């Protein structure tokens, strides 16, 4: 007679062991390590909620303090490697295996640890891909999550940064796993129930509020004329050209400049209402002027952004908010929206090769993917048409029955030809390939594969890769916008001019734009303070962005 309930029994045993350190479900911060040592087993799959933004930092410190004699060889399955503690557990041996998505701030250290063999790496995923595996072969036995508040029954309010939490809890709780939540405070009644209490096994009242990184705040004061020029070209040469209404923006300065040009340059071009109306996007402070000017119909968010809470509360027509009035974000749903319901992804990258493959990996930094590859890919499962999608499809169609043509998602790379320290963005060979060789990765960490990319925009022009008919044309189109990088200077000038004549390459002057017009006075806001004014005082920027 097989035992069909062994997982349930194991879960009950863990719960029982943990109760020694709890009063009901509530655990004090000082007991976190005792609790974790009681409920964890060597080799467990553990999701320590490290999101793109919010961090279960109290639980992370508790896990890092566990005795490696008792708790070791954990398999961490979490989307973000953000805090030092996320890697400390691999130094001490508490954890051994890792499957993750994003490691922005820890990118340099994770690279070092990968080279040094401290981490047995499964794979670097996209968000949706990792979430999907939570339900197939990477289901956590224990999830350590973060919320703003909980009641004594465990009903959890995540606050505006809901992010990954519902997905993590869904996979863990409903497959016999244990869920431990850290909260900033225990309350009589939560403002809204984001996770019902019967899915939360223990609640830890954290010693300090959980940490949130202001990842999506771009200070307009730092925007350069080059970024403004690129933004002007993108608006006129892509947004207007394809009538892009449903879209996702990356987090770089280039896309932030586009957001700030909509109410000025976009308005002057008469584009209001015809582009950029429906968004899958975090609440970027730089989108405030476009929202206030009536450009934006609605925005669904992956997470929130520090300082935007009051503003979002007062704009429920635009944002998704709960009955309590605060933002409800959801990374899994928003990624799905970005993948299937947006006609364009536009974002930056660190390296692009001669075919258009791109990567944010350099030899000393492994930043991971996050969600860009989900949004920056052409979803073959899409079955609904839109004018934008169909126009891109027609441009890409080389042969075959027109009646069977399907559309294409616009995947646009917005880059300056040189990055920080005069490092060329365009390269013959991606550093990602070197990294894969050195660390024995089966798959090179490519952010967006060439066959998904439709346009590359630089200060030199727009390359429309949909219109390229063979590999040589594609290479020359890329070289033709690569500026004074070695790749750019290696162009065949005759072929590049021929591509320009066909409209495959378009220079600023081909679009009626003079580089001399790219002036900071075009920005709807030139400082964080301007954004505060646009918001009517509702946006409350974090201290590090203030100069008042």
């Amino acid at each position: 007679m097989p035992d069909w309930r062994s997982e349930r029994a194991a879960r009950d045993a863990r719960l029982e062991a943990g109760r020694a350190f709890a009063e009901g479900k509530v655990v004090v911060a000082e007991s976190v390590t005792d609790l974790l040592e009681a409920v964890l087993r060597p080799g467990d799959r553990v999701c320590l909620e490290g999101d793109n933004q919010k961090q279960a930092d109290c639980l992370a410190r508790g896990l890092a303090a566990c005795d490696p004699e008792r708790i070791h060889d954990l398999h961490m399955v979490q989307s973000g490697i953000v805090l030092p503690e996320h890697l400390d557990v691999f130094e001490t041996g508490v954890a051994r295996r890792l499957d993750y998505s994003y490691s922005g701030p820890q990118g340099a250290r994770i690279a070092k640890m990968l080279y040094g063999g401290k981490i047995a790496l499964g794979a670097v995923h996209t968000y949706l891909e990792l979430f999907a595996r939570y339900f197939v072969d990477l289901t956590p036995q224990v999830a350590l999550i973060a919320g703003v508040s909980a009641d004594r029954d465990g009903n959890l309010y995540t606050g505006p940064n809901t992010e990954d939490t519902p997905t993590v809890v869904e996979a863990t709780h409903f497959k016999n796993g244990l869920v431990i939540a850290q909260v900033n405070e225990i309350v009589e009644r939560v403002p809204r129930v984001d996770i019902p209490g019967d899915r939360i096994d223990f609640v830890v009242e954290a010693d300090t509020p959980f940490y949130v990184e202001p990842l999506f705040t771009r200070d307009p004061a730092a925007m350069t004329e080059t970024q403004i020029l690129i933004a002007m070209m993108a608006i006129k040469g892509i947004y207007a050209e394809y009538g892009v209404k449903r879209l996702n923006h990356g987090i770089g300065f280039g896309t932030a400049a586009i957001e700030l040009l909509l109410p000025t340059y976009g308005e002057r071009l008469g584009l209001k209402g015809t582009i950029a109306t429906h968004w899958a996007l975090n609440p970027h402070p730089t989108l405030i002027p476009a929202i206030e000017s009536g450009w934006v119909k609605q925005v669904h968010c992956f997470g929130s952004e520090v300082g935007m809470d009051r503003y979002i509360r007062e704009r429920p027509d635009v944002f998704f908010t709960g009955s309590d009035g605060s933002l409800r974000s959801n990374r899994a749903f928003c990624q799905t929206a970005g993948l299937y319901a947006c006609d364009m992804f536009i974002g930056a990258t660190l390296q692009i090769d001669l075919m258009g493959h791109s990567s944010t990996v350099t030899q000393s930094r492994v930043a991971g993917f996050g969600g860009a590859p989900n949004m920056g890919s052409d979803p073959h499962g899409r079955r609904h048409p839109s004018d934008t999608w169909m126009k891109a499809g027609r441009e890409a169609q080389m042969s075959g029955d027109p009646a069977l043509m399907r559309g294409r998602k616009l995947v646009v790379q917005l880059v300056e030809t040189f990055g920080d320290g005069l490092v060329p963005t365009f390269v013959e060979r991606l550093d990602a390939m070197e990294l894969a060789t050195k660390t024995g990765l089966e798959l090179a960490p490519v952010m967006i594969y060439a066959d998904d990319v439709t346009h590359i925009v630089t200060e030199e022009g727009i390359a429309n890769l949909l219109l390229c008919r063979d590999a040589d044309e594609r290479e020359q189109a890329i070289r033709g916008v690569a500026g004074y990088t070695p790749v750019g200077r290696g162009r065949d000038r005759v072929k590049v001019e021929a591509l320009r004549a066909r409209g495959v390459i378009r220079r600023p002057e081909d679009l009626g734009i003079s580089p001399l017009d790219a002036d900071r006075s075009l920005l709807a806001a030139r400082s964080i303070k301007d954004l505060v004014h646009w918001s009517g005082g509702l946006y409350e920027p974090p201290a590090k962005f203030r100069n008042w």
Partner: protein
Amino acid sequence: MESLTFRHTIQKPLPGTKRAAITGVVASGNLEVLLERVLPPDACEVAVETAINGYGDVWEAVVADFVARAQPGGLRISINDGGARPDTVSLRLLQGVRLMEA
């Protein structure tokens, strides 16, 4: 620091009568461009003092493209560079020429 000088022969003098103009600020990733109408109308000289060594071939290409585009006959152009990217250099040069044409 590296000093570079490029001399070009130009078909025609730059329009305008302004004797000198300056644009830009020397800062990290930025540069200043001083333009003076002191050379024969068929000559242009660009002298660069740059904080970053080893980009002589890039400067040569940037200056050649600028000269072909702007036809800055008669100008001596002097640059103090704090490590600007080529696109910023091109932009400042064009901004400078616009001031001289005014």
